[in-house]
């Protein structure tokens, strides 16, 4: 499950895209872990997350309280700025939940967040990109949106359809982004970033 890795984007776009995930290690610290996952999500929700989720729920398919109440095995929270990530890490360090915490995002920025929160990185996972028959891929601008759902539940054609609806005035970028976010089962899709990307794709006259 590398569902938050391989997010495609520019340095500028990715500077507003962080996912913090909290996970129990099966057979080691899973006893009572659901309550700790719920606490993780409660801490996250104090810092204006753009999305939260667990295995089968996100805050656009369910109410946030339902997501928190049903957290199981892994939980995620999406943020659009480094300051929120740092503050959540500080509070998680203090809460000492004992579950593993992983931050997905621009590695140098995440390292800064760790240092400011008094943490040291333990293990790092790099993305070495996409190999093989890359001519089968949709455009890069579509991939910037679709790769925010690592399980690929957001289809390229749906992104293009949303862009067409925005151009026609049938949808606005924010609403379209939230609709896309609802299909990402575990809530790692960043609708704030998606709204900006959809607006850019729709044309210069569209504001996110």
């Amino acid at each position, binding site marked *: 499950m590398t569902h938050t*890795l391989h997010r495609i984007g520019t340095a500028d776009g990715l500077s507003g895209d962080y996912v913090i995930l909290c996970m129990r290690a099966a057979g080691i610290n899973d006893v009572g872990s659901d309550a700790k996952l719920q606490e993780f999500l409660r801490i996250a929700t104090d810092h204006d997350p753009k999305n939260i989720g667990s295995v089968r729920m996100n805050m656009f398919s369910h109410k946030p309280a339902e997501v928190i109440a049903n957290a199981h095995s892994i939980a995620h929270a999406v943020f659009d700025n480094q300051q929120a990530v740092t503050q959540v890490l500080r509070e998680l360090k203090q809460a000492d939940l004992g579950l*593993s915490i992983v931050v997905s995002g621009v590695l140098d920025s995440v390292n800064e967040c760790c240092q400011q929160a008094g943490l040291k990185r333990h293990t790092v996972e790099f993305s070495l990109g996409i190999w093989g*028959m890359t001519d089968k*891929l949709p455009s890069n601008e579509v991939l910037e949106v679709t790769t925010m759902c690592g399980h690929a539940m957001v289809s390229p054609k749906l992104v293009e359809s949303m862009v067409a609806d925005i151009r026609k005035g049938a949808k606005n970028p924010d609403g379209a982004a939230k609709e896309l976010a609802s299909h990402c089962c575990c809530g790692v899709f960043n609708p704030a970033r998606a709204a900006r990307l959809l607006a850019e794709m729709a044309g210069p006259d569209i504001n996110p």
Partner: protein
Amino acid sequence: MRIDEDSCIACGLCVPYCPMGAINMDDIATIDEDECIDCGVCLRAKVCPVDAFIYEPAPWPRSLRAVFSDPTTEHKETTVTGRGTEEMKTNDVTGRFKRGWVGIGIELGRPGVGARFRDVDKVAQAMARSGARFEPNSPVTLLMEDVGAGKLRDDVLDEKVLSAIIECGFPIEKIRIALTALKEVAQDVDTVFSVDCISVAEPDGSLPVDKILSELEISRYINGKTNVGLGRPLAEGERR
């Protein structure tokens, strides 16, 4: 997944939702069964005004399509939940990856293209020849009839899934051989794959594999995943 032909009203609303582009519109909407990976997006989207989508769990080996493609489905055959394992996410606790060791994840079909297990088999065998140690709990490893050779069982090879992850590891001194072999086999698959590289940070925070990647002229994204070491109990050898 199939569409009830007596119910479909040919509105076409479902077509853009399919990640594989497997829904075709003619007089009515139909699903190309061979391309469909049973991910369930069309059904969960609840976009069909007449509820024409019908999903019945498929028998082996087609059952693999849903378990590898639908994140809400559990791996009944492999007894593992999800496409992959906890990999580095819980490494502070499990110690799955140690210093001097590099984890490589090769996710065939990602992003959004899909892959046949025939291509997964091809890449897994290339990694086995390079000295890979396959993650024993990975759903792909559990489909191997010969783990030493990276050989998948024949009855699964034609099945298509949204993605499947080969999870393996190498001593850091062998990573050059492995990534060179991966570059070669990339020319021989009918899909894409996303590659990840996992390593434990040195006490000073540095990552020795970064230098090797530069020497091999393999670029990495500026973004990635960082385990911040808050899990407890810490893995053996990591206690401080």
